[in-house]
């Protein structure tokens, strides 16, 4: 008998890129569903719009590069990027901003560098920052969470606002939207209000903004699922959340009325989404274990610094992008000690 020959190992491979991406998408779903629950249909519309745009852009770029299209679409990385961006966008963002953001993420941040695996920056976060810097008003017009929302929109109304900009009769943008808890907190702190005074407002739940903290919980759950499935390792989430928590608690301890408590930082804004789904993006993060600890800790630190003293309300995107730039250098200096070698790597 004749047999085909290949080199070892011959065993069936338990992992694949598409499986990895699908697991991350799956883990994202509880948080995304919570977003829809608290912030309305606009979130779902954004997710669908972003996904379709991402796949179309990816297909176009791969076509132009003369590569087979289906395997690239089939790795689901474009969809994941789209979903991560979509859940970070305000629910009633005009459709063309979503399209611009996703197209930028896929074409300029990912494909122009060579596609999946070659992009130095996290595409979703780069797109988020592009939109935030270019369209700050639209990007900070958030809806109040479900329990505080006096004018919940139906699916059709949401679609109408997103695609035509036409508000339901009798409603104004001001009536419809409000700042995010993070925005509200730091704007008021900047106005030298006391923390206790701010927290007396109905906006707040146990740890962060009402509704927001629950979304955070679901992201946390998804993240634990990813840890359990070993899609991500604990190093980046733990070091990022840990460093953020520690420094926030330290400042809160120093001045209890000027700096929000530690858990506020964890459960408000994009911290938990960032810790489990954004900062752990393997392509743009550090790959050595020690490096991941440094990388995560620095993101946590930057998040605190930018939130507290920076000009933008949330900081996860900026922190991640800044650390993306540092990742190769961190990797270089945190190589593990190879078996049978003296000393620790290249330190």
């Amino acid at each position: 008998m004749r047999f085909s020959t290949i080199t070892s190992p011959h065993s069936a491979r338990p992992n694949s890129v598409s499986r990895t991406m699908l697991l991350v998408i799956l883990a994202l779903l509880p948080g995304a569903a919570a977003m829809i629950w608290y912030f309305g249909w606009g979130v779902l519309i954004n997710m669908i719009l972003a996904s379709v745009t991402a796949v179309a852009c990816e297909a176009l770029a791969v076509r132009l590069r003369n590569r087979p299209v289906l395997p690239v679409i089939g790795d689901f990385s474009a969809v994941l990027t789209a979903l991560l961006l979509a859940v970070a966008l305000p629910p009633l963002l005009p459709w063309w901003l979503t399209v611009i953001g996703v197209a930028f993420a896929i074409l300029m941040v990912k494909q122009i560098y060579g596609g999946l695996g070659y992009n130095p920056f996290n595409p979703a976060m780069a797109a988020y920052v592009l939109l935030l810097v270019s369209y700050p008003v639209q990007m900070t017009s958030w809806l109040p969470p479900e329990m505080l929302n006096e004018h919940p929109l139906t699916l059709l109304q949401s679609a109408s606002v997103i695609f035509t900009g036409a508000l339901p009769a009798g409603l104004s943008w001001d009536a419809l939207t409000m700042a995010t808890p993070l925005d509200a907190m730091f704007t008021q702190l900047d106005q030298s209000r006391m923390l206790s005074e701010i927290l007396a407002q109905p906006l707040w739940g146990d740890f962060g903004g009402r509704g927001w903290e629950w979304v955070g919980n679901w992201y946390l759950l998804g993240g634990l699922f990813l840890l359990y499935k070993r899609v991500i390792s604990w190093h980046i989430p733990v070091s990022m959340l840990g460093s953020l928590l520690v420094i926030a608690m330290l400042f809160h301890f120093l001045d209890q009325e000027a700096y929000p408590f530690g858990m506020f930082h964890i459960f408000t804004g994009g911290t938990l989404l960032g810790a489990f789904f954004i900062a752990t993006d393997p392509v743009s993060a550090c790959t050595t274990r020690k490096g991941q600890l440094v990388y995560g800790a620095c993101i946590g630190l930057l998040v605190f610094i930018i939130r507290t003293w920076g000009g933008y309300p949330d900081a996860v995107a900026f922190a991640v992008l800044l650390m993306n730039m540092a990742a190769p250098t961190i990797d270089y200096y945190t190589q593990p000690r190879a078996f049978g070698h003296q000393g620790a790597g290249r330190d």
Partner: protein
Amino acid sequence: MPHSVQKQQKHTLYRFNGGLHLPDNKSQSLTLPLEKAALPKRLIIPLQQHIGEGAEPLVKIGDQVLKGDMLAKPHGYVSAPVHAPSSGTVVAIDVLPIPHPSGLPAPCVVIETDGKERWGNQLQPMADYQHADPSLLRERIRNAGVVGLGGAAFPSSVKLTPGMENPIDTLIINGAECEPYITCDDLLMQTQAEKILIGIGIIRRLVGAARCLFGIEDNKPEAIRQLRQAVADAGLEWVSVIAIPTLYPSGGEKQLIKVLTGREVPSGSIPATIGMICHNVSTAFAIAEAVVEGRPLISRYVTVTGNGVRQPKNLEVLIGTPVAELIAQAGGYTGQVAKLIVGGPMMGFTLNSDEVPVTKATNCLLAADSHEAPDPGVAVACIRCGRCASACPANLLPQQMYWYARAKDLEKVQEYNLFDCIECGCCSHVCPSHIPLVQYFRFAKTESWAQEKEQRAAERARQRHEAQLARKERLEAERKAKLRQKKEALKKPAVQQPDAAQVDSADAVDPKKAAIAAALQRAAEKKARLAEQGVEPKNQADLSEPQKQAIERVDKRRANSDANSVTSEKQGG
């Protein structure tokens, strides 16, 4: 006795980085009693079944050989002989397909067996092996053709000759058998515990180790039990049979040493540098057979398994038995067979045909279906997830090595410790992008070796060229110096000439003729001196009578015309 077995003291174990928990797939081939494979009509014995120089054939086509006769003797120090696994007639000595990753054929001796299994009597049992001289033991092990049976097939006698600079204190016996599917060592340990311990005793004497750590993965409880019992029965308090966690690749030499002792063999070194030596359990058995029974290495246990055969099992197989016959004895192929692998699924290599023989290093034949050994899918881009690094038992960064290997940046990939890679396949196994990482590393290693060889050759050529230039320069300088001397001599001949005492006074005025005469005389003197010592010029050593006469004629003619015909320029130059 079981009481003393229980008293096994707790041994501290250590961890290496990464490793994999693989489905072990061992139970299907773990069947007792162990069968002997049927005697095949033809045995194909490759001359090189070991690391080092191939053996030199001692037989010719048509020779009758008896079981255990040496078919080929070792060639050089790092080499091993091969023996006739059964009696019969040598029908061919030819280049034939062998099981080798390269797929290249190699010289083999083919024996047509006579079915009588008659033994020759080349090696005698060494009854007093416990007191025999170590050099005799080593010679026996070498003459029995014992090589490392863990896979590398390094001649054991060489490995059992430790250098003075590295005293050995610990003997490690590798019974881990960490690759999935393979069970031949397990069965050997279950059935031959006493003899294995005899082999260990011999090895211990030869290397001078104080203790022996015998590592067995804990998925082989019966083997562990048998060996602990045998150790207790024999009262060998210096042997510790240690159950180690089942974690691929704990059977890698350096990994096993780390697990058992916590010590790491320095990169690029052998275990002896930290006072250890590691032998496979079946090597210990083969050594005992060679010494105690006088039986050369002509058979071994082979696992025949996988979903591609009907009845997976272990067989005691004569070296040289064609693979196809073993498959037939395991019930033949099932319809699903897709690949035929020698060794395990992680480090084995595929055969393109089953018309190759079992060699000393063949421990397992895995006839795998397309689920057990699927065709590798298309590799997609690396997503830098780092799973490869988490799985790497050598604590390397396969991902970085891959980028550099792909870019053919050999210097950089070596900087990332390419040569510490043991090619265990963990990284490739876990890679979600299905990148054949190990293949890239093999490529980079081979390229590095080729480059190094090229550099050495270039360096040699450069040195040769420089030496040649220097020589030419020197000769030129010498020539000029002589020329100058001669010119000076010509200017004042009266001062120079009296020195040439032997020269005929008639010629004294002509320095050229004087030089010729001097040279001729020197040659004659040298010839006479050599003749006195009984040394003759080699080129005349075995000449036929007519040739000698011809030479004489020429010499005579030359003697007559010499003085006139030889040009002084040539002689003087």
